[in-house]
């Protein structure tokens, strides 16, 4: 297991290098001259030239790349064009908000999804099962921006239960987390259901029945633990997809997270911020995948060896 973790850690190194290269190259491809942008409107040719010199834009690309990476290693992501603040500092205030949103959404995905899946699986093809699965299907197919707006309209604007936007209290978390987590919950529900139905047919469930175990204990002790193994992978994948979704949800609910920061920076052509934001988002994605892999391995060890 230790070796697996070490090996898996080693594998992320080239991935991270790859991410920096991709981010760097994309920034090169963005139309427009960074020096011109940085100098602002009405700058003289000389100023621009001087800036170009200062930014090392005359250097060959690979030198620029190494400069970029060595700056990164020192925690230097450059300065925002908009307010001259260090990019890293900006990201550090935004990232926790996005992570918080992502974690709450994942909780909703897990709890809601698994509960619905179990309820469905206990009485397959019953009315309850059908209703739950239809709702789940809707949850998968509804676009989240529409769903988010509908939630906001009904629960905030009409019913005044939750605040419309912002990120000040726990109440602010509910609607965005629900918007973001609902699609995943639907997928997890369907996955849990089919996995449970698969497990319930297994021989060891029959063995438990032959011992005289109660049906409820069979579901929660014998079936669920086995059924959840494949669900864990789905949850992990969902978490990745969910990070992408934060961009949209943060915009809808006016949350000052990382996603919204990137969107705003793109609109303002604030390239250093875009660059830093995309890089950090990618790194979070890589780390999450790493954790999911290790967890899955941990849960799945005995089954692989079978």
């Amino acid at each position, binding site marked *: 297991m230790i070796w697996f973790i070490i090996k898996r850690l080693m594998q992320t190194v080239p991935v991270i290098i790859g991410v920096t290269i991709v981010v760097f190259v994309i920034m090169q491809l963005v139309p427009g001259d960074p020096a011109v942008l940085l100098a602002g409107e009405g700058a003289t040719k000389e100023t621009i030239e001087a800036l170009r010199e200062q930014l090392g834009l005359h250097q060959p690309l690979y030198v620029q790349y190494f400069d970029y990476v060595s700056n990164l290693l020192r925690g230097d992501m450059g300065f925002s064009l908009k307010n001259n603040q260090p990019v890293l500092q900006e990201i550090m205030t935004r990232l926790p908000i996005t992570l918080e949103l992502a974690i709450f959404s994942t909780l909703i995905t897990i709890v809601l999804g698994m509960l619905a899946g179990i309820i469905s699986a206990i009485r397959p093809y019953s009315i309850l099962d059908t209703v739950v699965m239809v709702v789940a299907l809707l949850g998968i197919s509804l676009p989240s921006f529409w769903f988010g707006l509908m939630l906001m309209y009904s629960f905030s604007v009409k019913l005044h239960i939750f605040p419309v936007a912002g990120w000040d209290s726990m109440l602010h978390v509910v609607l965005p987390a629900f918007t973001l987590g609902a699609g995943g919950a639907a997928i997890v529900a369907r996955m849990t259901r089919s996995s449970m139905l698969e497990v319930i*047919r297994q021989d060891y469930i029959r063995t438990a029945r032959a011992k*005289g175990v109660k049906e409820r204990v069979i579901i929660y002790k014998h079936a669920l633990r086995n059924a959840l193994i494949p669900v864990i992978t789905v949850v992990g994948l969902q978490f990745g997809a969910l990070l992408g979704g934060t961009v949209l949800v943060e915009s809808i609910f006016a949350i000052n997270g990382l996603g919204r920061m990137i969107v705003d920076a793109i609109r303002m052509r604030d390239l250093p911020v875009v660059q830093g934001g995309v890089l950090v988002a990618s790194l979070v994605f890589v780390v999450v995948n790493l954790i999911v892999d290790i967890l899955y391995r941990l849960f799945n060890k005995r089954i692989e060896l079978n």
Partner: protein
Amino acid sequence: MSKEVILEVKNLQTHFTTKRGTSKAVDGIDFTLHKGETLGIVGESGCGKSITSLSILRLIPSPPGKIAGGEVLFKGRNLVELPESEMRKLRGNEISMIFQEPMTSLNPVLPVGEQIAEAIRLHQKLNKKEAAKKAVEMLRLVGIPSPEKRAKQEPFQLSGGMRQRVMIAMALSCNPEVLIADEPTTALDVTIQAQILRLMKELQERLGMGVILITHDLGVVAETCDKVAVMYAGNIVEHATTETLFETPLHPYTQGLLASLPKIDEDQEELYTIEGNVPSAFNMPSGCRFASRCPLATNLCREYKPELIEHESGSKVRCWVYSNKWQEQEVVV
């Protein structure tokens, strides 16, 4: 051997309702099991052996399965009509079962000791610690070396033979009066098979329970059973003591099964096999179910179903040959 009857199955019928129609997987089975006795149930795959044994414990997957009729009398109580909660108290306690597939019959995510202890805690007034200790004792009883260590392991760390020993330990942990073993050795290799059968026999003698041993291997029957029920297409076609069955097999199907056994003392060119196929459970012939494969079949056989009748040897047989009608019929074939 004491003569006390502990289990009596009367006209048991288990049907499966599917899109293709109703399959009468078990179609009127009768047998009795005495204390300390081993009853073998033999027959080709698909003849209804497993469904019979699962019906006794009411473990038929339902839907599509259903016990459509008959009685299972255990110490005077009809299990078919028992409430589910009463049935649960019985399962794994007074009647327990071991299955054919040791590789898949244990929960892959629970330590084996815990799986045994679960049965113990369900049926005996022991706390967690005492049950765990008893589980280790059971593992020792079934001959698993270093049982303390094994109890903490999960099934994937055990071989097939070991797992079947665990299943036996689990089944015997509450001193059942009846043990149903559904092809307990079929999935194991030959040397392990012999070990497991010896273990079961030894434990039966020590604990005095009645055993129903299901198998498709007449060799296993010869070694371990006191009496045998031969099943064919959901019916019992012959019921005899092991000795009588091997000396004077009556039913043409039993004779075919015996003829297809490899014999050590004879140098056989090739093994005899019974030609033809078992009729579909959805579409049973109205006459004798074996008629399409029977070398002796007549119109009488094809039209009317024989009853299970008592033969002078003491065996019971379901075949027209042993009835008065056989002599009376016109020879038309």
